[in-house]
């Protein structure tokens, strides 16, 4: 599974992207965020505000209950500020 981070999440996590292999029971966006948060303080801090963090799975906006699986590209970022 490929994870990508944008804007200030990238700085808190410490890198722009990474390959991870979460355990099989990590089947949803919410579970993935819990699993990541347990990996270190930077992750926990980056993902702390669940109501604010936006998630995209395979470049489509996703909700906490949406499924994730091996091979997916999952992106984490703050609310967008383009325009």
């Amino acid at each position, binding site marked *: 599974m490929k994870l990508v981070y944008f804007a*200030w999440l990238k700085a808190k996590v410490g890198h722009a992207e990474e390959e991870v292999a979460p355990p099989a029971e990590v089947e949803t966006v919410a579970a993935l965020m819990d699993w990541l948060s347990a990996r270190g303080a930077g992750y926990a801090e980056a993902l702390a505000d669940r109501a604010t963090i936006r998630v*995209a799975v395979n470049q489509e906006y996703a909700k906490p209950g949406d499924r994730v699986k091996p091979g997916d590209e999952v992106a984490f970022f703050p609310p*967008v*500020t*383009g*325009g």
Partner: protein
Amino acid sequence: MIRVQREDFDLGAELAALTQGRHDIGGLCSFVGLVRDMAPIDGETTGISAMTLEHYPGMTEKMLARIEAEAQERWPLSASLIIHRYGRMEPGEQIVLVAAASAHREAAFEACHFLIDWLKTKAPFWKIESTDDGREAWVAARDSDDDAAARWQRSDEAAE
């Protein structure tokens, strides 16, 4: 048509190209977003020396194409255009152009307004501002942008 690019664009040339050879267009409406030299940071009006836009290559193009398709579906448009820049820009520089052309002005005005409101809350771009005193601050999303986009939400669609 959509374009995501680092370089600046020529507003006049872009609009001329959009209507080139077309005789069915009665109205063309465009909006250009520019970099301001002042911004509220931590509640204080602060001088800005530059702004850098980051985006999510791939998803950006997908979302912009979808936003344009949504405008095409909602209004009888003859032509439309979204150009969004990324990278470093200084105050006064152009960031974004949206344009909508139609047989009549109503559709052109509304679709243009829709394009920029929808883009601001859905396209994956993020701005970081460099202040005159050497700080860097990510721009926070504004509730007023969500409110602006919500005006175009159809009752049969769930809000995100």
